[in-house]
């Protein structure tokens, strides 16, 4: 068989068709970017100083990525449309085995591009990962299955107040309607425009602190204290940002939500003062004469699985959480289906005691349960008679 010396001449319209197909594809890509849906290809607007840096890096990477994507996909599609085999193509096309010059070119150009990307990402990393020696606010975040505890530290590193709660405004007896400055409404409050250094610890498995609007996450590794720093933009005062555990940590992984509540400097000071006051307040004494039950939690299990109290009389559970710090429990009461909440109590951190007071209940069978760990070992039957 004879080898043709050059590709068979195609009618000019062939190249036009091929080019046209590529142009249509380009138009579709451009339409996506320019329409509202294009915004979904970008991360959400960042709200921290560090987040803006990450966003800038994302934008540069994205621009280069789109350029490469269009160039290469276009070349692939164009080649296939333009050089498809037609009836009568019996002669072989030119048997090109390679070309050292173009090989060198397409090795060098990508090398330059990735080295540039590496350089700017390293530069960005140095600001994103920077830690100051004297941050304005220090928070020690403890992620245990399946709840976040935020300990506010003074400059000496002592705990002044603890906020242990699920996501902002997630309900609870003290927070019927969310109010930013109400510490009982959950979430980790931080002041805007001040640097916040967070240290991360875990008493059990690996978790990850992730706030999408920060464009940032950091693993919470047991046995290793990680730290990072952020400063929320001044314009964000009064906003609440959702956060969530991002490293699979067990059955309750998805429930490990938290919020970051951005407050103006003065609101934050008020909030923290209220939190400290609440921490120092002595709990109201239990009603005299009420039935008092003992209950201990250890190794994610209640020591008793059956409790019984008289009907329509308030009672008290003296609860001891004998698990390590960071492993929080509570004793909620639910209907016997195990789902419908009857009484919701605040959590008690590991190593702490809590005296839970319950209003009188009508006679019947209920479930008492740790809402953080709704496993069989932390679910029991409460008989009210």
């Amino acid at each position, binding site marked *: 068989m004879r080898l043709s010396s050059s590709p068979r001449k195609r009618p000019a319209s062939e190249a036009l068709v091929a080019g046209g197909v590529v142009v249509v594809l380009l138009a579709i890509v451009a339409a996506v970017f320019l329409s509202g849906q294009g915004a979904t290809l970008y991360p959400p607007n960042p709200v921290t100083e560090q987040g803006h840096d990450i966003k800038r890096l994302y934008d540069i990477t994205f621009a280069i990525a789109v350029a490469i994507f269009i160039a290469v996909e276009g070349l692939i599609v164009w080649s296939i449309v333009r050089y498809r085999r037609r009836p009568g193509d019996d002669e072989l096309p030119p048997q090109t085995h390679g070309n050292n010059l173009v090989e060198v070119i397409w090795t060098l150009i990508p090398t330059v591009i990735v080295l540039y990307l*590496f350089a700017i990402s390293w530069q960005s990393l140095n600001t994103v990962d920077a830690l100051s020696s004297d941050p304005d606010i220090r928070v020690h975040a403890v992620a245990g299955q399946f709840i976040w505890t935020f300990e506010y530290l003074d400059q000496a590193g002592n705990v002044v107040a603890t906020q242990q709660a699920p996501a902002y405004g997630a309900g609870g007896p003290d927070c019927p309607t969310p109010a930013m400055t109400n510490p009982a409404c959950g979430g980790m409050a931080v002041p805007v425009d001040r640097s916040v250094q967070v240290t991360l610890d875990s008493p059990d498995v690996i978790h990850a602190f992730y706030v999408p609007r920060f464009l940032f996450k950091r693993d919470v590794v047991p046995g290793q204290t990680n730290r990072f720093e952020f400063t929320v933009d001044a314009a964000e005062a009064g906003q609440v940002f959702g956060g969530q555990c*991002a490293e699979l940590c067990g059955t309750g992984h*998805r429930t490990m939500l938290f919020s970051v509540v951005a407050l103006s400097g003065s609101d934050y000071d008020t909030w923290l003062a209220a939190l400290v006051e609440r921490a120092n307040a002595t709990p109201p004494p239990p009603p005299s004469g009420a039935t008092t039950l003992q209950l201990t939690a250890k190794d994610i299990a209640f020591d008793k699985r059956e409790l019984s109290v008289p009907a329509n009389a308030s009672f008290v559970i003296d609860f001891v959480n004998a698990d390590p710090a960071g492993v929080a429990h509570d004793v909620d009461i639910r209907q016997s289906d195990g789902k419908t909440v009857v009484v919701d109590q605040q959590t008690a951190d590991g190593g702490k005691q809590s005296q839970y007071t319950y209003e009188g209940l009508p006679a019947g069978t209920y479930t008492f349960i740790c809402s953080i760990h709704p496993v069989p070992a932390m679910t029991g039957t409460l008989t009210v008679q």
Partner: protein
Amino acid sequence: MATHALAPAAVTYRPGLYAWLTTTDHKKIGIMYLINSFLFFLIGGLFALAVRAELAVPGLQVFTNENVYNESFSIHATVMIFLFIIPILAGLGNYTVPLMIGAPDMAFPRINALSFWMLPLGGILLLSGFLAGGAAAAGWTSYPPLSSIGPLASPGAGQDLWIVSLVLIGTSSILGGINFLVTIFKMRAPGMTLFRMPIMVWTMLVTSVLVVMATPVITSALVMLFIDRNLGGHFYDPFAGGNAVLYQNIFWFYSHPAVYVMVLPAMGVISEVLPVFSRKPLFGYKAFIFATAAIGALGFSVWAHHMFTTGAVFLPFFSLITFLIAVPTGVKMFNWVFTLFRGQISLSTPLIFAVGFLTMFLIGGINGAFSAAVPVDFALHDTYWVVAHLHYVLFGGSVFGLFAGIYYWFPKMTGRLLSEGFGKVHFVLMFIGFNLTFFPMHMLGLAGMPRRIADYASGAGWNDWNLAASIGGFLIGVSMLPFLWNIFVSLRTGRIAGDDPWEGNTLEWATTSPPPPYNFDRLPEIRSERPVFDARHGLIGHAAKD
């Protein structure tokens, strides 16, 4: 000398099922690899569909027990990686490598059979976790302490079965890798020098080096996990002097090269398909080989890019190497595109799937670069972006390449051609379904949806993309029907293929379809990487380069 060198040659001819169960013929073993792995693909796919069904809309619908949800995605990934992609590509290599180098069989045929039979055993062990009180539920990565013993960790036998199963499958891989390497180094036909080997053989060579050097490392990580769980060890126990991140380092030292184990053979497949259907040689044959070797070598020094957010790795180094690995990958991409360029392209099913590989793997490469930029990875790590990225590499890359290979070599394996019509329906459904499933996951990840959650709030803004992804997932499931029907029909009534239906380049097309035991009655002269092309056309086009 060996007394059995003169043993009679008749013992291998046994009829029927018994012949398959006892065979040491690399072609039969290769086909069994394909069938077995494809069955696990369907099983893994069902788990994926269950997960997608759960995530289609907010609220818990499919899984009342969330632990079963965690089991589902853990077993989905484990099955797809260890029982589908790695073995099915090894199976394709098992079938083709001895044929392509003109060898009668693998170097160690019995060990080859052993390697295969460990796979169904490993798979059954893995799935038996569901009958033993719950399968592994700590993700396919199974990071301790979550995968250790503990009230809320992984107390059941499922996690132990997972470990044992993976060690077994790993051993199968190692033995297979050794077998490939000895076969490639020692069994080549006269004239088949290393730089005349088909690219498929080269990619299997590099893959096998990765398997032999990396798989034992994960075995060590797994046995230490087993010791921690069952023998009171403290390797990964941070509360008794161990280190939880140690596991991640050892695990990813294997599992990153494993990505190349999963994708290099698919690259080999399309490097065979593209030249044949463009009627041109692969552009830059040697550059391609060096790029493959470079990917293999760099692949050992990027493992920690899976751990950027742990706060326990040296970020700039791993970021740099991860970026650099894009260069040889880019070289390959350009080589493929320039193979198409100025060719005469037949739009047959194998080529269409190979082009599917090119277009989708390109996305998987580009979106990987985002995660190499460490600060961007802080935003994207462990979100659905990563799920999108890995599926564009492993599904858009490996699985499309795999189907290119199946459509390409099916006539060689069976003697019959698959239907082009069903093949194209299969491609269109799978291509649309794939992009509908995985492209929206980029948006979900950017919007902050973490991986491995059973449910999400309705107000999180993730509803539309999740529904799209779930519809796409079921479309992928549907796309398997025309494929299976195609196989079923073509085995009976497909057009007779003849020895060389595609005008192939490599030695497997010089023998009958299917090839006889021990493959060749005679071999064409081997003077380039395209011996069958040379036999057809003469040595044209070589003067310019060689």
